[in-house]
């Protein structure tokens, strides 16, 4: 009797094992198309773009003769690309800072057990459902230097040229360009922040909701005022969220294209130009494919610096 049961359970296990392996094969089989697609269309194509960037293909007719780093040397000596790097740097810094600061303020305001919370939340979130093209079109009209908010600002004695301003502040000679904050970029930052803060508000709000009330109470018992509770207790708890927000926003701003293309274009003296716009124009308007590919590779490397460590650390966290 006892032996029989053991025997049976043994057969059951072996049968189960065999069917598991078969199902495992099936599972992997279902995954293979996606692996192949990502392998070819992401990694293979990146490799191909890398190869094009080292080739001589700067006309309509493909020419894959190898020219080494020629296209990259050309770019880094190019006025427009130098301006792009400067613009991207300052756009990214201003954009990320604003998204974090505004996002945190809005999240804290929304977290005060207010009435109509979902209404306010939706007002801050809805721009995220819009296209950057729509945002660009609308803000181009709003920040038009001869109109828009300037009608108000002019009354206050402030007159801004917004995205048509060609000032670089402070203009420090660097390579072929003046290095500093391109004032015209501020207009683009405002539009981008309007569209994207919803993301950081959502993240911070989720974070704030996750802080147990006892933690705040304990700090208050120790005599901390509300400001100190936020600064010393809540902010450190939210730090991982800030890291996520910085990385997500950085990768968006490093590859930004449609907002600027729709709102301002490259601008006079390329004050609002970015690599995404340059890549598009030089490749698809000018047929400088190799130059375009080189710009794309620089963009990819810039994004990878942020994303690869981030993905790597998320992966380890799961083990």
């Amino acid at each position, binding site marked *: 009797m006892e032996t029989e049961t053991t025997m049976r359970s043994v057969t059951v296990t072996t049968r189960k094992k065999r069917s598991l392996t078969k199902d495992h094969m099936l599972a992997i089989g279902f995954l293979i198309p996606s692996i192949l697609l990502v392998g070819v*269309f992401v990694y293979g194509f990146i490799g191909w773009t890398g190869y094009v960037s080292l080739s001589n293909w700067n006309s309509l007719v493909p020419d894959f003769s190898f020219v080494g780093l020629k296209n990259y040397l050309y770019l880094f000596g190019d006025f427009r690309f130098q301006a792009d790097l400067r613009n991207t740097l300052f756009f990214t810094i201003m954009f990320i800072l604003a998204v974090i600061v505004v996002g945190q303020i809005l999240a804290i305001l929304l977290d005060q057990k207010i009435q109509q919370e979902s209404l306010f939340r939706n007002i801050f979130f809805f721009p995220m459902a819009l296209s950057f093209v729509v945002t660009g079109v609308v803000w181009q009209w709003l920040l038009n230097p001869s109109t828009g908010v300037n009608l108000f600002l002019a009354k206050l004695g402030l007159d801004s040229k917004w995205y048509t301003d060609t000032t670089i502040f402070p203009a420090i000679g660097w390579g072929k360009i003046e290095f500093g904050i391109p004032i015209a970029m501020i207009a683009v930052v405002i539009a981008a922040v309007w569209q994207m803060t919803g993301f950081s508000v959502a993240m911070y709000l989720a974070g704030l909701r996750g802080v147990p009330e006892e933690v705040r109470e304990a700090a208050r018992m120790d005599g901390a005022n509300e400001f100190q509770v936020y600064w010393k207790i809540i902010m450190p708890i939210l730090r991982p969220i800030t890291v996520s927000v910085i990385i997500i926003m950085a990768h968006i701003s490093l590859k930004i294209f449609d907002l600027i293309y729709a709102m301002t274009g490259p601008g006079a003296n390329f004050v609002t130009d970015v690599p995404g716009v340059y890549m598009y124009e030089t490749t698809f308007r000018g047929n400088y494919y190799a130059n375009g590919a080189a710009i794309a590779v620089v963009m990819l490397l810039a994004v990878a610096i942020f994303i690869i460590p981030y993905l790597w650390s998320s992966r380890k966290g799961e083990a």
Partner: protein
Amino acid sequence: MAIRSFTRPILYALLIALSCFYLMPVYVMIITSLKPLEEVTLSQMWQLPTSLDFSSYSEAFTKLAPNLLNSFYLVIPATLLSALLGSLNGYVLSKWKFKGANTLFTIILFGMFIPYQSILIPLIQFLREIGLYNSIAGLVFVHVVYGIPITTLMFRNFYASIPDSMIESAKIDGAGFIGVYRFIMVPLSITGFVVVAIWQFTNIWNEFLFAVTITTSDQQPVMVALQNLSGSQIVQWNVQMAGALLAALPTLLVYIFLGKFFVKGLLAGSVKG
């Protein structure tokens, strides 16, 4: 929990002021789109129209209607296909883990962060080769392929919350790989499908770079057509604004009615689910 030192009126005043800032573009968009052209002057920009004029809408609609239709032809199949693919991938990567599954997932995930400029030149060459360049079908294909990372991520995180014990007991009852998917995962992941579908719908509808480089003239989705409106000689701002509103309407409606799921998708996209 509330900031006690904050007096309530100041709190609400701040929130209302900030809300005005966020709603300002919508206000200007709506009033401008309802004005006749002669009232669309820079100095009258903030004033309400003296009379309602819907001619900008009919003009914008005539110009954008074919492209709006293109966008629907693009978004619907692309959303469905990428949700299906993502759910299968997410199922395998969360419930049928094999050696190296996590590393493979990370490698797939990288694809959602790349600037698409870095694959665009070979992609267009490829689409020309297979005859899908300048077609909605080509765009559908592109969005399904490049949607794999994000949809896989969302479903994988979603399926991680379904307890393994349920799957084990289904397996003991004789369900295999497909049975478990069909009878356990799919019925339990309706929310997951809604979140992913809304996310993909919104993103593909709003996408511009692929649309502007892969299609020309009559094949273009609405965002490219909207951008082209401003490229014409004289910018008719009332028509522009009406066009922007029309182009934004589908995703805006989705947000208004299903915003909760949209925000879920948003948070899911930040990798750590």
